[in-house]
Each structure stands twice: as structure tokens, then as C-alpha cells.
């Protein structure tokens, strides 16, 4: 059934219920625009007209549609069309089999607030065991915004594809006409908020984000410690959530570990689905390399690819950087790239990667040695001062020198993650007043092969 026929049958229904005056005043001037994917779009003259109909006549119209078309459940959508413009031809001729094709004209076009990178799509995202869960969740959300998982919280280390994933959702949703997507990083959100405060245009700020269908917020951990923005965001979050709009956030750590984030926000962030992007394994890294250089003129040999994938482990961004360096070297020098020259080419990157490979055991050994306690003391239940302090230092260093999460660190010490968190804070706080402690820690850090100054210890 097409839009015009469905609407005229609905009108026949409504005529029996409403009196003539009301009908001609509110219903008769609605124009059917399209019927696609079970969504009937009606054109209204202005937003006041739309508001009055939605507030007062929506249940009646829905009921009438149901009677006119009992088999399928048709949803309603309104678009504003000033009467001066000629009406576009009804969408009757368009077969319903291609519902997702964006079209100009009759539809209110989909719109985006904030700039997204159009190349960040699901097709360009290489899936491996480390990110398949996050990818599947994001895909599900993109297909049914507001219904699948709300809110979706994605966290992971830098360069693992958080931004790629949420922008992919945004780009996918934008393909559906009439959808509005807002993509914003917490930092720009803060700037806009400060501007709004200065220009006393808070209401505009609120309306801007409370009327989007999908809200994508990058780097939410930046909200930490910004109390008033958190307050504002809390209300925006609730407004969106209550009207069943999709919210997706990314962060570099789980919500509960973001210090300086209000509890009520943390609990809300954990309300929906929380997924982690982990460091890709070797196979995924290799797959990413293959995918990325599929379009390169001079692809790297398998041997070189394997070398890069084996040695650049921490994040995808460095992986791409290494690959780019290798490819541009061979194309600039026109010499065939050997394993040795590649190793030389990537020497700084490889050094950095190696440093990342400190284990808890290394740290515990180094700390125990320095403070002259036994390694087992560090994970024992005893807590005399002579053991408690080195234990706290070891925990603090585990936190700073490895990428492990609090629970992982806690496990290796046989403690709870709260203890670890407390230790990190205690040492961090004491270091700023106790210079001897700072010197001691620096010595241990140097022993472990790191530069304390660059780590800001």
C-alpha cells in the first residue's frame, strides 16, 4: 500500500470520529509524503502545527491507521514543509525494497552535529577476537538506535579504534533519512558549555543536544573533575535516555575507574552495555596490515609484515605508522627493504614497544630488592610499616608502568582493587611532599629501564 492510499483510508476513519471543523483544521491539511519501511511520513506546515497534532491527536491518528491497515504496525513521522513550496510527487513509485537509500527531496534529510570522518565505517573495521564483541555491539546499536543497548560504553587504550567504532555507528545511522546524529568529544563539549555560560545561551546549548536521535561522545573521561559540566551532562543524559535516544560513549578506562566522576554518572554509564577494546592479537594485527596495504602500490613482503605485526603490539595507530614508514621508505629509495633495514628504520618504535613489556614480577622483584624485603612479603597479609610502604610502591608502579587494570594488579598482590586504588593515590599524594620517597621510586623506575622524568614521576 502506498502513502496516499493509506492516508486517504485513515482520513475516512478519522472523519467518522472528528467533527468537520476539527478535521478540516488539523487533519485535512496534513499531506502524506512517503511510506517506507512501515514509517508513514506526513508533511505539516510549521512546528506549531506539528506540536499541536502530536500533543492532541496522535493517539487518534494512530488508531485510525491501525484500522486502515490492520496487518502491519505503521509508525508515524512528521516533516515540516511550508505551503509555498510545491509538494513533491508522492513516493508511490518507489519500491519499498530499498528502504535505506538516502534520498533528497520529500524527506527531512538526516543531519549531523559535529564533524565525523566519513572513512570511519564498519566496512573498514578489521575484526579480531580482541574487538569482535565491541564491534558486534556497535553494529547492533547502529541498526536499532535506542533499542539495542543503551547507553553503549566502549573503553580501551589509545589507538585501538574507539573513535573509529563510534563514528562508524554515526555514519551508518546517518544513512537513514531523518535521523540526527551528534558527535562531540568531551573537550569540545566543555568548550561549548563555557561559551554558552558566557553568552548566557544555556537553553540553546540544552536544546542542541536534547533533540538528537543518536549522541556520540568521545573521550568521556575528560569530564572527570568538571562538576558543573557533569551536572549538565547528567540532565542531558537523562533527557535523551528517557526519550529512548541512543547514547554511545568512549573512554580510555572503565567508568568506575575514572577518578572525579560523580557516582550517579558512573552508575548510568554502566547501565547499558560496557565493552572493552583490547590490544589486538598477532593474527588481527597481521590482518590489519594486510587490509591497510591492499591499496598500496608496493605491498610489503609477508616476512616484513610478520615482523611488524610481531613487534608493534601496543596499538593500531603505531602499527599503521610502522607500516607507512616501511612502505614510504621502499618507494622513496627504490631499494628493496630487508629485515635488517626495517629493524633499523623502526628502531625507536621497537624500543618503546619493548619497554611496554614489564611484568608484575619484574616490578615486585625490583621493589623487593630495593627495600630489602621478600617478594612474598609484598603479597602477604601482614602489614607492618616496613612491608606496607614497599607494597604500595609496587602497586603504584604496576599501575604506572604497565597497562594492566586495577583488578589484574590486585590479583597479583592478592588484594582487592580498592586497596590498589588507595595505594596509588596514597603514593601519588605522598610523593609530592616527600622528596626522599620520590628519589627512591625514581631509582627503582630507572632500574626497570624506564625514564622517570618522561613518566612524570
Amino acid at each position, binding site marked *: 500500500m502506498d502513502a496516499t492510499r493509506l492516508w486517504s483510508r485513515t482520513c475516512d476513519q478519522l472523519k467518522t470520529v*472528528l467533527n468537520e471543523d476539527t478535521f478540516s483544521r488539523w487533519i485535512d491539511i496534513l499531506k502524506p509524503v512517503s511510506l517506507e519501511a512501515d514509517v508513514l511520513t506526513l508533511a505539516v506546515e*510549521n512546528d506549531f502545527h506539528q506540536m499541536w497534532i502530536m*500533543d492532541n491527536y*496522535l493517539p*487518534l491518528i494512530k488508531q485510525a491507521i491501525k484500522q486502515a491497515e490492520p496487518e502491519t504496525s505503521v509508525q508515524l513521522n512528521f516533516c515540516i514543509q511550508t505551503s509555498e513550496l510545491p509538494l513533491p510527487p508522492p513516493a508511490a513509485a518507489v519500491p519499498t525494497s530499498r528502504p535505506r537509500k538516502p534520498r533528497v527531496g520529500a524527506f527531512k534529510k538526516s543531519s549531523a552535529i559535529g564533524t565525523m570522518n566519513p572513512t570511519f565505517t564498519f566496512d573498514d573495521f578489521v575484526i579480531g577476537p580482541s574487538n569482535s564483541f565491541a564491534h558486534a555491539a556497535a553494529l547492533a546499536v547502529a541498526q536499532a538506535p535506542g533499542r539495542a543497548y543503551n547507553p553503549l560504553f566502549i573503553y580501551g587504550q589509545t589507538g585501538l579504534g574507539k573513535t573509529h567504532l563510534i563514528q562508524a555507528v554515526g555514519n551508518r545511522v546517518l544513512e537513514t533519512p531523518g535521523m540526527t546524529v551528534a558527535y562531540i568529544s568531551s573537550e569540545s563539549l566543555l568548550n561549548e558549555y563555557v561559551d554558552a555560560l558566557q553568552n548566557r545561551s544555556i*537553553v540553546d546549548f*540544552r*536544546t542542541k543536544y536534547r*533533540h538528537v536521535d543518536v549522541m556520540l561522545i568521545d573521550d568521556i573521561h575528560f569530564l572527570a573533575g568538571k562538576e558543573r559540566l557533569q551536572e549538565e551532562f547528567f540532565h542531558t543524559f537523562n533527557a535523551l535516555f528517557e526519550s529512548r535516544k541512543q547514547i554511545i560513549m568512549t573512554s580510555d578506562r572503565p567508568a568506575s575507574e575514572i577518578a572525579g566522576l560523580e557516582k550517579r554518572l558512573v552508575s548510568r554509564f554502566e547501565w547499558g552495555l560496557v565493552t572493552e577494546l583490547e590490544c589486538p592479537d598477532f593474527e588481527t594485527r597481521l590482518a590489519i596490515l594486510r587490509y591497510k596495504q591492499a591499496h598500496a602500490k608496493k605491498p610489503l613482503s609477508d616476512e616484513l609484515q610478520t615482523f611488524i605485526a610481531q613487534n608493534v603490539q601496543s596499538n593500531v595507530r603505531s602499527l599503521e605508522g610502522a607500516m607507512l614508514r616501511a612502505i614510504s621508505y621502499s618507494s622513496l629509495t627504490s631499494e628493496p627493504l630487508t629485515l635488517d633495514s626495517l629493524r633499523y628504520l623502526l628502531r625507536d618504535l621497537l624500543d618503546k614497544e619493548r619497554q611496554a613489556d614489564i611484568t608484575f614480577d619484574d616490578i615486585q622483584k625490583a621493589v623487593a630488592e630495593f627495600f630489602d624485603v621478600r617478594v612474598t612479603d609484598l603479597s602477604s597479609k601482614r602489614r607492618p610499616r616496613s612491608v606496607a610502604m614497599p607494597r604500595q610502591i609496587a602497586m603504584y608502579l604496576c599501575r604506572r608502568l604497565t597497562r594492566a587494570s586495577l583488578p589484574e594488579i590486585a590479583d597479583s598482590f592478592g588484594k582487592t582493587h580498592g586497596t590498589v586504588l588507595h595505594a596509588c593515590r596514597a603514593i601519588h599524594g605522598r610523593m609530592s611532599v616527600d622528596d626522599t620517597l620520590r628519589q627512591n621510586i625514581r631509582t627503582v623506575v630507572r632500574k626497570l629501564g624506564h625514564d622517570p622524568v618522561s613518566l612524570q614521576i
Partner: protein
Amino acid sequence: MRFTISRSKFLDALQKIQNVVGARSTLQILSNAMFKAEGGRLQLTTTDLDISVRCSVETEIAEEGSTTLPIRRMVGIVRELSEQTIEIEIGDDDIATMQCGSSFFKIIGLPERDFPPVPIAEGTCCYRMEVATLRDMLRKTSYAVSTDETRRILTGIMMGFKDGKLTMVATDGRRLALAEHEVEFAPEAETEFVLPSKTAAELLHLLGDEGDVRIFVQKSQAVFEVGDTTLCTKLIDGTYPNYRQVIPGGCDERVGIVREELLTALRRVSLMKSEKSVSARLTFGDNRLSIIWQNVEVGEARETVPIKYSGKEISVTFNPDYIMDPLRNLAADEIYIEMSNSHSPAIIKCDEPFLYVLMPLQVN
């Protein structure tokens, strides 16, 4: 600056301006009132940056000058003083000393130069009408404004000077209140603007029963001048929607009801109100209106009200709050409800130029 003032006049003036203070605590000066003693008059001004109110009182001035003092505290003190004459002296350090009979107060103020400048009444568009008329029209419409900040334009009251009359309209999407009154003004002075509801509340506080009000309209602000008091307000930007569309052309049936009786009956059934249940069913039968509120959680209430009606039986569901709002603010003894059927809007009218459109609730 130094002056002597009568307590009752002073209190009266302070109370007129005391509501308009800054909501933000960051600008402390906004919680102060500006005092200016000049040419035999004491001028008091408060502002919250959107609205400012100025009131002047005739008084005996020994030394001219200006300062700002905390308004809330001043009202509190002056209200409690016992003697009829207050002597006030304010030094260059903006500290005020007040002597009244046996009472002595020292109040720390802020310098006058930090007080935001207050716009003055000027402009060519001037309208003059009776204070009581404007007050009644505001009363009849202001309750119907929207509280939804996202529909900014509907949070205000539309005031239109057109065709030799003033029309005031407020709507929130489910109901619409409209009041009209004839006002004399030049044909070229026809205009339309949207008054914030906060200003309407403040005007209702200021307007008394007697005298005239003069209205000056400038580009984005309006000034109301009543006797010794001047209120200046920002207006809401934008064009008010076409409200005429909402008013039905004609209705089939007309019911006459005694206002008080309907109001008290509705007030009683409203005791059944709860968060989930906000609607009552009104059945208009032969000279008899029955109101039923069924609340599955609480219980049920029934009322019957005698009416003048002999048409077909009509049963409509309304939010009783929305019927009570206009009833409370009308003065007429008898009101008329016009409607066609249970899905069409109802209109409440009375013998004054007033109209209220109410949409029925759709219950499945």
C-alpha cells in the same frame, strides 16, 4: 547621602521592587537595590538583568547621593521597625546607618558604580490603558503558558496591539487562553510581542486597582510605567505561532454553568488525583453534568452539577486542572462551555471578551 523617610512609604516601595533580584549568586550586586536620593525623591531600583523595576518615593533629602544596599535585609528590617520616621545616612564607604526610635542599624552596601545600567522608558510606541484592565487580562491568560523551555516562544504571553484592541494569548499545546480589550492607539502603532511569564508574574505583583499604565515598546524590550513605578523587561525573540488556527470555527452544543459550582465540584473530585491518574470524565446530560474521577489506585469520586443544557449527551475526558485554571481567574458568575463531540476541543467563554480552548484527553 542623608534622608528622612516615612516607614510605611518606604516599606511599600521596597516591597514593590524586592522580587526582582538576581538568581545567580555570582553577581552579588544583583541582590542589592540601588538607592538614589535626588531632587526631593528617593529612587529605588532592582534588576536581575532580564527585568528591572524602579520605584520612586517623595522624601525629605538632606544630602543627595547614591549607593546599593541588600534589598531582602532592608525589607526585613523596615517591616519590623516600630516608629513612623526613619533617618538614614549613607557614607562614602557605602555603609548605611539607620535610626528609628530606639532601633539602630548599620548595613554594609556596595558602590553604586558596579550596578548594571537600567534602561529608561523611551520610544515612540506608547499605549495607555487602565491598570485594572491589564491586570485582569494577565490574570486570565498567564496560567496557560508552556513550561517547556525547549518551546521558548510558548513560555511567554503574546501581546498584540491590532485593530484597535489589545489581544493577549498564552498556550502550551493542550490549551489556549485568549483575552481581548479595546485600547486606543494610533493605527501605525500596531505591534506584537511576546512577554516572558516571569515579567507577567511581576506585573501582577505591581499592578493595583486604580490609575493608568503606559506601555513603551522598543526593539527587544518593553517598559511598563505605573504611577511612580517603572518596570523594564526583555522580550522573547521570535514570532508567535498562528494561534487563530487553534480556535474552532463553531460548535454544535452550548452549556451554561455557574462558575463557582463547577469550580468547587472539580476541586472536590481532584482529591482523587495521583501521579498516574490526571483525568476526569465529564458527561453533559439533560440539565445535569456528572463528573467522575476513577483512579484504579485510589478509588472513585462522583459529582453532579446543575447546568443549562438540553442537547445530545456528550462525554469528554479532561484534565480538571486545566478547567479549574480559567475558572479561578474569571470574575463572571456564569460561564459557557461549547463543544461538538468527545474528540473535538471544548471552548470556555463568559460575558467578558475571553476565550479558552481546551483539548480533550484521548483515552483508549
